[in-house]
């Protein structure tokens, strides 16, 4: 018979071993501990084994990724990490200036990447560079669109940016809750250039946004507006990404999206190397791989979400190109504006204005 005392000792020993094992696992799993890894802060579209596998095999390296859903999330992770823990960042290129300003990004050499195969508007230094220094390489882009149900909302109306304000559609409109594209869309509806907004433009934009909210049934995040469109709670979604309908197209082919004739808004993500990375050469190789025609094809058709590849030589099937609306891209790029390039101060002003819009009765 085992004495209770011995049982206690065994249990304590077991607990101690478990604790040591746990701590050891935590230490071993930290990015800094692993030598043969490339540590990447990324959105979900860079996590497919089919995308990462060829790079890992070719370079005998393991890509250790951490999922983030925004630049703020990346900054939060960095706040908990040591310098050098992370090598590559996937980020919304609207934040390139802000991240470079914080000293987080390493300068890159444009000659290392296939900028010749990237459409001029996508490769624009406004999104990728600060004071002539390249900090981000564009890799994927898409659009904030007017998404609608073809059976209940007229395609011609969807092509007019002012339709969501039409009293005819009161209570049938959903508004995506990310203020940057919403503010830009509203600026376009007001005939402004959304790339050159100043403090003086904000009162008119605010009034127009309040009118939009009053005509809308709801304002919501991706999941909420997607569900509202899918369940028929609304007929049209203003400013949501094309992925809102792309994800539902298989189950509900009546959902469609368009870019208004007056113009639209384009999102764009890029790859950067952290200034403190100890593996800058490997990080550069990773960006080169993602920008290669094969890497671009796989990234564009990621299991997480699809989007247009920056490299026009991306390897894609005809069906995939049809879904991505490949042939419409020259027109779409021409008629859309990229996300605003903002100072943190102006960004705060826009956020406060958006809060005022949401609070309006």
């Amino acid at each position, binding site marked *: 018979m085992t004495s209770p005392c011995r049982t206690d000792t065994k249990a304590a020993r077991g607990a101690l071993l478990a604790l040591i094992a746990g701590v050891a696992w935590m230490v071993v799993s930290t990015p800094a501990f692993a030598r043969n890894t490339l540590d990447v802060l990324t959105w979900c579209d860079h996590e497919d084994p089919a995308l990462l596998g060829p790079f890992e095999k070719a370079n005998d390296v393991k890509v250790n990724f951490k999922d983030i859903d925004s630049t703020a999330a990346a900054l939060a992770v960095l706040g908990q990490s040591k310098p050098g823990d992370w090598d590559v960042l996937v980020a919304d290129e609207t934040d390139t200036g802000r991240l470079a300003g914080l000293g987080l990004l390493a300068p890159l050499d444009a000659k290392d990447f296939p900028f010749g195969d990237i459409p001029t508007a996508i490769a624009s230094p406004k999104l990728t560079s600060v004071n002539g220094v390249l900090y981000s390489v564009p890799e994927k882009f898409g659009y904030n669109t007017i998404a609608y149900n073809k059976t209940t909302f007229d395609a011609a109306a969807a092509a007019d940016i002012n339709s969501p304000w039409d009293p005819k559609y009161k209570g049938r409109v959903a508004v995506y809750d990310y203020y940057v594209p919403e503010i830009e869309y509203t600026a376009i509806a007001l005939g402004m250039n959304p790339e050159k907004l100043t403090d003086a433009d904000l009162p008119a934009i605010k009034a127009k946004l309040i009118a939009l909210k009053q005509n809308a049934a709801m304002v919501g995040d991706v999941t909420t507006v997607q569900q509202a469109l899918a369940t028929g709670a609304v007929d049209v979604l203003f400013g949501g990404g094309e992925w809102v309908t792309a994800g539902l197209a298989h189950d509900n082919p009546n959902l469609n999206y368009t870019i208004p004739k007056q113009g639209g808004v384009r999102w764009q993500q890029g790859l950067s190397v952290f200034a403190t990375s100890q593996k800058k050469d490997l990080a550069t190789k990773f960006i080169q791989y993602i920008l290669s025609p094969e890497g671009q094809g796989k990234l564009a058709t990621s299991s997480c979400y699809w989007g247009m590849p920056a490299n026009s030589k991306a390897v894609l099937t005809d069906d995939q190109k049809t879904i991505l609306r490949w042939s419409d891209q020259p027109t779409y790029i021409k008629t859309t504006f990229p996300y605003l390039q903002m100072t943190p*101060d102006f960004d705060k002003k826009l*956020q406060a204005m958006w809060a005022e819009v949401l609070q309006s009765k």
Partner: protein
Amino acid sequence: MARTLAPVVAVERSANEARAARRDRLAGAAFTLPALIWILIFFAAPLVLMAYFSFTPLSPTGGRGAIGLGNYRAFFAESAYVEALWNSVVTTAIVVVLSLLLAYPFAFAIATKVPRSWQRLALAVAILPFWTSYVVRSYAWLLALSPSGVINWTLHALGVTHHPLMLAYSPGATILGFVHFFIMLNTLTIYANLVQINPRYVLAARDLGAGAWRSFLTITLPLSIPGVMVGAFLTVVLCIGDYVTPQILGGFRELLLPQVIMMQIQRQLDLPMASTMSLLMTIVVAIVYLAMQRWLRMARL
């Protein structure tokens, strides 16, 4: 001899008592210490850190600014933020009142009308919705309130409405989601209090000629106030800081403070401003606690 030894015995006894008292104090401290350390690490230290952050606003370039009241000034200068705080307080007050009004009769019926052998089952049924995730419950309400949901279907079938109503994505839907959750919580706290009231008090009052209504108002209700207050306070604490329900059911028709706090973090990682707002919310909860302290008797539960 006995006379000479008495003072020595007294001194020894006193020393023994002192030692015992010291042992008791040490044992008390040893038992309290883990809880104290826990509170210091996981409550006091984060609170102090949050307070410190709230006084270090971000600079215009996004870096750490100088220590000062900038965040507090910015908060009270922005009407949308102050309104969010006010909305949170009003929403919480409505939820507290509605939850208590609905939970009290329910708890009372279980405690006094349901046979004792069935009370456990009745309580289990009452708290059944607790078994599902909070997020799932909120989404379930969203489906129930949707144009093709069960509520619109019922209204249409009864001929009350001819077109589907937009019931979700409104402050009313947020309150509905909250009340559904907090009815269960308040039922538990009120029931736990009601079953502790000695039934002889009511019997004595009835013997002395008081009617059922009067004996309830003058005996049962006052004695059940601690349970009501504990339920109300827990509702305030959990409701005022909740982000999920207004986010899923509210449709941004109006913002509550937790949503504004998330806005600060999601886009800019403005932890100082988020800390300022969180601290202001903590102050509101502290004020509520002080106001209700007189009736808060956890030991009665």
